[in-house]
């Protein structure tokens, strides 16, 4: 079976589903609350969303591996396929496309379809100062989730948004960059 077929199959038969609207509204409610709590300091909002995502990623990976039975990937290309066809499919029911590979095969872009379960209903408020559209990455939590989940499988990555249609860009693009493969930690006093 192709990865896509595996993802579709798990989604169909092995996932407890709910209407995405409660998720959309809940996430929206959190982002709006963070904007208030941080007094519209959107850099801090991004950071906080990233942190929350990281914490989620650390756990979500366990459920992911248990559901899919995926073992360690041999290449980063394979990893990115697994993220899109299995990860995004199983948790958000979308399959981003992967493109824009760097020559060294260590970084690529994930293009998220629109609307997606995070951004449905969302429009950034337009006021005289368009700070929000320049600074806020509304879906930043996804970066944290990927970073956390990948770290648990010993892949140290940078994950960040480079484009977002909410800001008026032509598409929503997330950049994934592999820094290094982490080694097993060694117990203290052992070498």
């Amino acid at each position, binding site marked *: 079976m192709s990865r896509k077929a595996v993802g579709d199959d798990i989604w169909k038969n092995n996932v407890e589903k709910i209407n995405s609207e409660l998720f959309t509204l809940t996430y*929206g409610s959190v982002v709006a609350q963070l904007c208030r709590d941080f007094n519209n300091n959107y850099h801090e909002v991004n950071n906080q969303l990233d942190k929350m995502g990281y914490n989620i990623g650390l756990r979500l990976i366990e459920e992911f591996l248990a559901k899919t039975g995926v073992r360690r990937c041999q290449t980063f290309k394979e990893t990115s396929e697994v993220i899109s066809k299995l990860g995004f499919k199983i948790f958000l029911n979308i399959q981003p496309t992967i493109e824009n590979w760097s020559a060294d095969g260590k970084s690529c872009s994930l293009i998220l379809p629109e609307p997606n379960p995070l951004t449905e*209903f*969302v429009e*950034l408020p*337009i006021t005289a100062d368009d700070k929000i559209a320049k600074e806020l990455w509304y879906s930043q939590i996804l970066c944290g989730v990927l970073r956390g989940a990948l770290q648990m499988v010993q892949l140290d990555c940078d994950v960040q948004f480079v484009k977002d249609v909410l800001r008026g860009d032509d598409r929503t693009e997330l950049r994934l960059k592999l820094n290094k493969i982490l080694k097993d930690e060694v117990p203290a006093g052992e070498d």
Partner: protein
Amino acid sequence: MSSYYLAIIGTRDNPIYELEFASFKNTTILSSPSTPNTPPPIPGKARFAPNVKELLPFIANSSLDLIEDAQFTSNQLNLGKIDTFYGISINAFITPGNIKFVLCYDGNVKEENSIRSFFNEINELYVKTLLNPFYAVNDAIISPEFDLKVKQLARKYL
């Protein structure tokens, strides 16, 4: 051809959106002999007399008492024509979340069905506004997109 004033009023009797406009219908017929010095009227632009214009927000506001009386006696969203005041008629609509739409207009008896359709579609626009996490109940609706859509509805129905 009549002029209209639409006010959307929040739960604390605060206006969250206002629009003055005139019927877009029959604009060509109305090309009354205007003197060369006065430009032809802009289709859709409200032509309330200045003294009426000033009063409109107050008329809308004073109708709130009547609307509140109806609020828990009628289960309809569209309350129809609820009052007239110095030749200004007032129609009203209440959303399930108690946001009020008030439409004040001069002139004769209007097609109630058109106003109802107008209100119903504005309600849908309002709900879309509300779904945006960055909008909170009772905030003013400043989205240009919303304004455009309301005006398109005005053109379509009134």
